[in-house]
Every structure is written in structure tokens, then in C-alpha cells.
């Protein structure tokens, strides 16, 4: 809750949070909100402009663009979020193990990561889609397979920097088990960093999914997806450019919001600022930055 308050103070972050939250909510409740079924073909209304019944007009098959945009949130955002969650969990698990236990565990996990990371991402995604066939599920699987190594690597670095700290050493002296140390002493401190990294990755993943769908490799027609909507509008790009506008803007706005939110999160999650806020208000004086070297007592 404190985090939310801090986030709300940053206007840009607050606005971004609203955009992202609204998008997620609309996507979840798509059937309730969308004015028309997204796949309802209505040839009489082909390429018709905005009207009271169809706020954003109709596409080349006379389908309601607004409804398709709303349903498109599901593959474009919700499923990407799920894939990101899966990736982050795998990455966090392996990264924690590597960063905390070091030694052989670290060496083995990191060499596997090196191997995974040495494949160019897009090529591998294309190869996986080539083998398993086009479709959203396959692309998401390819994503998880390609990205976990990157996450593991980043999380390892985050964990390693805290696993060295003296309070972790002290906890081990006391005889706390590895799991206890990780959950009590490392995870709470590394979590903000993980949240920032993950939210940063979300933006690029949304873009990539849309990109692959634009190429026709993602979700299959007639289901709606933002990238695919742009692809469908491509045929009439010069006669009816406005058809590209709606999905294009949706992508730009959402990805920017996610990126701004991730920046805001980074600021809001700084433990020094977070914890001493109330005391700073009470006038306890200047708060020294944590790693300001070893000043004399």
C-alpha cells in the first residue's frame, strides 16, 4: 500500500499505472465491455467510418474494430503477462540457486544459460514456430524457452550482490536454513529489482508478440490480436490509413505506459526512501545513503 502511495506521487507513473490496470481489466472483462462479438462479419459495413454503433468503424470484413481491439488485449497483453510470469519464475528459481549457492551449481546453470543466450532470439523463435507450427501457444512457449536464461542471469547478479552481505553471513552463523535465508533475507531485498526488470521486459515482449503476429506467425485468424489487425489493415494502408491507427496507437500507448511504470517502480521501490519516509517527515534530519563508504563513526 505504501508502495502504491509512493507511486501515485509520481504523476507519470500514476497515469501509466492507470492505463496498464485499465487495459488489464478491460481485457479480462472483454465479453462484458465489447459492444459487438469480435468475429461478427457484416459485409454491408465494410470499411465504414466511425458511427454511434461502431465507435472506431469497421474493418475489411465489417467487423467492429473497437470490439476486436478489446478482445485483442487477451493475446497481446494477458497471455504475454502469463508467459512473462512463467519465465520470471523459472529464471528467479535458477538465478536464486546460482547466485546463492555459487560454486558448481552456479557454474552449471550459467553455462546452460550461456548456451541458450548464444542463439539469436528471433531466429530461435522462428525455428520453433517452424517446427511446431504457427500459433500463439507455440510463440509463447518459444518465448519462455528463449528468455528464461536471460532472466536467470539478471536475477543471479541481483541475488549475488546481496548473498555476500554480512547480515546473510550472520543469519547462517545463527543456523537459519538456506530456504529461510532466501525468503527472509534475500528475496525481500532482491524482489524490487526483479519487479523492475520484469516490468521492463513486459514492454518488449508485447512488441515482439505483436511483431510476430503481424508476420502471421502468432495467433491465427479470425481471432483478434493487435499485430494481426495491423497486418490486415496493411492491404488498404494507402486508401484507409486510419485502420492502422487504432491498433498501432494501442500498442504504442500501452508499451510506453509499461515502460514509464517500470521507471516509476524503480524509484518507488528504493528501500531507503521507502522505509524512512515517515521519519523524514518527522524531521529526523538527512538520511545517509547506504553505501556511502565507511565513514568514521
Amino acid at each position, binding site marked *: 500500500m505504501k508502495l502504491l502511495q509512493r507511486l501515485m506521487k509520481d504523476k507519470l507513473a500514476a497515469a501509466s499505472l492507470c492505463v496498464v490496470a485499465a487495459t488489464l481489466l478491460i481485457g479480462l472483462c472483454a465479453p462484458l465491455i465489447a459492444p459487438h462479438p469480435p468475429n461478427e462479419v457484416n459485409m454491408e459495413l465494410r470499411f465504414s467510418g466511425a458511427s454511434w454503433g461502431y465507435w472506431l468503424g469497421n474493418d475489411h470484413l465489417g467487423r467492429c474494430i473497437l470490439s476486436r481491439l478489446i478482445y485483442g488485449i487477451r493475446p497481446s497483453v494477458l497471455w504475454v503477462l502469463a508467459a512473462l510470469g512463467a519465465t520470471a519464475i523459472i529464471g528467479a528459481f535458477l538465478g536464486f540457486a546460482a547466485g546463492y549457492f555459487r560454486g558448481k551449481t552456479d557454474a552449471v546453470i550459467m553455462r546452460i544459460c550461456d548456451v541458450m543466450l548464444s542463439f539469436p532470439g528471433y531466429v530461435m523463435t522462428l525455428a520453433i514456430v517452424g517446427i511446431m507450427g504457427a500459433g500463439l501457444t507455440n510463440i509463447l512457449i518459444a518465448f519462455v524457452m528463449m528468455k528464461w536464461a536471460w532472466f536467470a542471469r539478471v536475477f543471479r547478479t541481483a541475488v549475488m550482490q546481496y548473498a555476500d*552481505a*554480512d*547480515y546473510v*553471513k*550472520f*543469519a*547462517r*552463523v*545463527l*543456523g*537459519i*536454513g538456506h530456504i529461510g535465508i532466501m525468503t*527472509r*533475507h534475500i528475496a*525481500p*531485498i532482491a524482489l524490487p529489482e526483479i519487479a523492475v526488470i520484469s516490468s521492463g521486459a513486459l514492454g518488449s515482449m508485447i512488441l515482439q508478440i505483436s511483431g510476430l503476429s503481424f508476420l502471421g506467425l502468432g495467433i491465427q485468424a479470425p481471432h483478434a490480436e493487435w499485430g494481426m489487425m495491423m497486418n490486415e489493415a496493411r492491404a488498404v494502408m494507402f486508401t484507409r490509413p486510419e485502420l492502422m491507427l487504432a491498433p498501432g496507437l494501442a500498442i504504442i500507448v500501452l508499451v510506453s505506459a509499461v515502460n514509464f511504470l517500470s521507471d516509476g517502480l524503480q524509484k518507488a521501490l528504493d*528501500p*531507503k526512501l521507502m*522505509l*524512512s519516509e515517515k*521519519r523524514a517527515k518527522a524531521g*529526523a534530519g538527512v*538520511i*545517509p*545513503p*547506504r*553505501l556511502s563508504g*565507511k*565513514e*568514521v*563513526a
Partner: protein
Amino acid sequence: MLKVEGVNKSYRQTDWFRKARNQVLRDIGFEWRQGETLGIIGESGSGKSTLGRLLLGIEEPDSGIITFGGKPISDRSTRRGAISAVFQDYTSSINPFFTVRQAILEPLRLAGTASRPFDIGKLLRQVGLDESYLTRYPHELSGGEAQRVCIARAVSAEPQCILLDEAISSLDGSVQMQVLELLKQLRTSYGMGYIFITHDIQAAAYLCDRVMIICGGEMVELVETEELKHVQSPYAKELLSKVIS
């Protein structure tokens, strides 16, 4: 009580082409007796901190055994409630998300004595702080205060042995003296012993019953503090003469 026998420790040098090993400790053997204060003195890089980590059971020696009361120190159950530590770097000694109260109560939670009535205020006053510090976070403490909290934390579960690795080295001169006094006083009131790792001979002589001198990973002397003047080995003599001059 804490018995060290034939301990060797080396670290692998991260070398691309050959597997060199850097021998940090060679054939160390001694015993810490219950209630005594043992000083471990040596130059920077002589392996004091490494020995400290081995004594605390958070690292394993390559060969040799370290036991506490007959049980291996590397077992978590041996350490629990029996041994504690204060480290040099007070900036990272307390979890930044813990208040002073949480930090001090953590050892108690583990030693299984959390239900016992415990006067945290008294403990804080003993280390020269007071109750107003209980709700503070580590970054709101000065270095000396943080180190005092670390000492209070180490003392709280009343372990038999506390290992202090350069616990006063990063403190200002007058604060050093206060902390030394504090340690002496706590020792009489709780009846525990210390293992005091330092490169400061004078501090060691002030606090310790026995002193061990370590050089290049080898133990060169282990004498009663009173006999420190009469040491035989040339290295120890040199170390002493530096201090006296």
C-alpha cells in the same frame, strides 16, 4: 570447547589456463576454552577472516576438523544458540528491511528462547543505546551505533562464544575504546567468551587472555597475553617492535 585440528584451506584461483590453488591456511590447530577471550592477530591477508569463517562453520575446511563441544561446527544445530558473530562492515551487517528490534530478536527466535521474558531495553542500555532506537532502520544509525546494535544482537541469545572479526577496526578511536570497555563489561555480566580477530595488537592485549599470531596462513605463536613480551618467533618479535616503537 571449540577445537580446531589440522585445518587447511585453499581457494581456487580463477585462472583461465591452469588450476592454481591459493593456500590460505596451513595446518592450524588450537583450542578455545570456554569463557576465555582469544585474540587472533595477523597482518592483512594473513587469513584471519578466512579462519573466522571456518570457526563459524559457514565455510568448510579442505581438511581437518572443527568441533564445538564435541560436535562438528558445520552442523546448523551445533551453532544454534551457541555461537554468534560481529563483523567488520557495519553498513551491511543488518538487514536493511529490519528495524533494530527485529534484528536483535532474530537470534532469540532461532535459539528457541523467544518465549522467555526478555528485556530488550536493558540490553540496549547495556550497549549504550536506549529504547528510542528500537524502531529505527539500519541506515538511520551512525557507524558506532550500528556496531553497538550488532553487539547487542550477538549477545541477545547469550551464546557461549562470540566471534568478532575486526569489529572495532572501522570505528573512530574514542568509540573503539568505548566498545572495548563494553565488551569487557558484557563478558563479566554474561560470562561468555570471545574470539577477537584484529590486526591491532594493543586492542588484543587489552581484551584478550591469550593471543594467537598468524602469518601467511600459519600459526606462529599462541601465548598468554602476559607473556606476549617474551615471544620467541622472529615474526612475532617484529610485529611487536612495530607497535612499541
